[in-house]
């Protein structure tokens, strides 16, 4: 099988647990390289548990899954950081560090993932900020930025290590419609450049405006359209 045609995410007969409690059973779906997929479902339907399982914050107990080349049913604890470097995470509970500037937030991530050369770090930060349309704000503190700008920085942070897929949980949840559209444009730009996107959302207007494949979590199952 050619590596280039391999899906970025592939789940087969996977059961998703939150602790000891099963939340989704017999999950089967895949996301191809460069694909844009929405994950929808009611609160408590298991969306977050599914996403957590994809980046190995929850262990996959039954079935099999492969994400960015790592087999989650076999993954060793020591491999998890390297899996996460191939995934960009945009989450509500994963906010910017408020005690440091945009540039320092991004430097922190690069240093934590093994980057050492100052020139390389500066170059990469400038690239991702340009990518999300924030080229002029590296020295600003998070509280000096608007909600939309902060979310752009969060997306920039997720893009630092050139992930194969961006996983976003309600990235527009706290934003007004206009800013939501701007953020969606950023995701689209990133997606057009070849990075797959899996976005959990409640905002169904986005689904109409930016149509893409939809995966639903309902009644303890995952239904892929």
């Amino acid at each position, binding site marked *: 099988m050619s590596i280039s045609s391999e899906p970025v995410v592939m789940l087969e007969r996977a059961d998703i647990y939150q602790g000891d409690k099963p939340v989704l059973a017999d999950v089967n779906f895949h996301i191809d390289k460069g694909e844009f997929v929405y994950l929808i479902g009611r609160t408590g339907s298991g969306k977050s548990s599914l996403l957590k399982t994809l*980046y190995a*914050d929850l262990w996959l107990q039954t079935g099999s899954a492969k994400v960015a080349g790592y087999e989650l049913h076999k993954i060793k604890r*020591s491999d998890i*950081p*390297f*899996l*996460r*470097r191939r995934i960009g*995470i945009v*989450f509500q*509970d*994963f906010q910017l*560090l408020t*005690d*440091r500037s945009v540039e*320092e937030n991004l430097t*922190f*991530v690069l240093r*934590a*993932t*093994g980057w050492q050369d100052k020139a390389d770090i500066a170059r990469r930060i400038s690239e991702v900020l340009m990518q999300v349309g924030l080229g002029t704000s590296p020295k600003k*503190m998070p509280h000096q930025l608007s909600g939309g700008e902060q979310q752009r920085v969060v997306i920039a*942070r997720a893009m*630092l*290590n050139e992930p194969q897929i961006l996983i976003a949980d309600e990235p527009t949840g706290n934003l007004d419609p206009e800013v939501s559209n701007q953020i969606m444009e950023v995701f689209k730009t990133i997606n057009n450049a070849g990075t797959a996107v899996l976005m959990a959302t409640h905002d169904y207007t986005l689904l109409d405006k930016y149509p893409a494949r939809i995966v639903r979590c309902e009644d303890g199952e995952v239904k892929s359209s």
Partner: protein
Amino acid sequence: MAKKKKIGSYPNTMIIISLTAALFLIGFCAMLVIQSKKLVSIIRENIDVSVFVDKSLSEAGRDSILMEVRQKPYVQPLGDSTDITFVSKEQAAKDFMEGTKEDFTAFLGENPLRDSYRVKVKEDYFEESRLKAIQQDLEKINGVYEVVYQENLADAINKNITKLYIVLASFALVMLIIIVLLINNTIKLAIYSQRFLIRSMQLVGATNGFIQRPFLMRGATQGVVSALLASFFLIILEQIAVRNVEGMAQLQEYEKLAVVLVMLVLLGILIGMVSTTQSLHRYLKMSLDDLY
């Protein structure tokens, strides 16, 4: 601007105080071992057995005893001869009077002491049972009135020092347990207060090694600082003892003391890092949701 929260930083005064106390006690035990060994070795080198001869014995008789004692295998050789000193009864009386400042011959009317030989015994025989055997062997010689040696000296030294070791080692052990608990608790609080930073690091793909490194560096630094403080206090204590206790200077072995201090530093680093590592392992394995 608020001070940036740095990963791996936490208050460490209490840890350093406790670790210093434990290392001090351990170092003190080690110094006692060295000095008691030196003391025993000095005593061994100077051990002698006094052979008192009969009062009526002639000079020829004394010479004959001397000849016979020289043949004994346990007598310490001295050059071509053996280390045996003759102490006349007059000399013994003089020594005694110098010690007591009393002229006992004045009220006794005569010198009741006897001529004796002070026989130095080889170090190997510095054991209660062997000294007893020597005593019995020498008392068999014709003309020997009595053989005397300082009984139970070696055993007394060893026994008392062992008691002291046990007490100090118990204190050190209690201190070590306190340190492990203290470090464990401090690390738990540090991880809790830095959970957002740690969460961020974990989500972006920082390895546990990378997250642990600053904590471990701090653990090692605490070990070094505590060991240096403990060494400083030990040196002060040792100097006070040397200046105020007569004969202490003779017991000092500075090379061995240096080895003890180096070992203390290594032990400090080891304790700091091992207990930090085990605490980190416990709490980093824990799901961050549990820590929240």
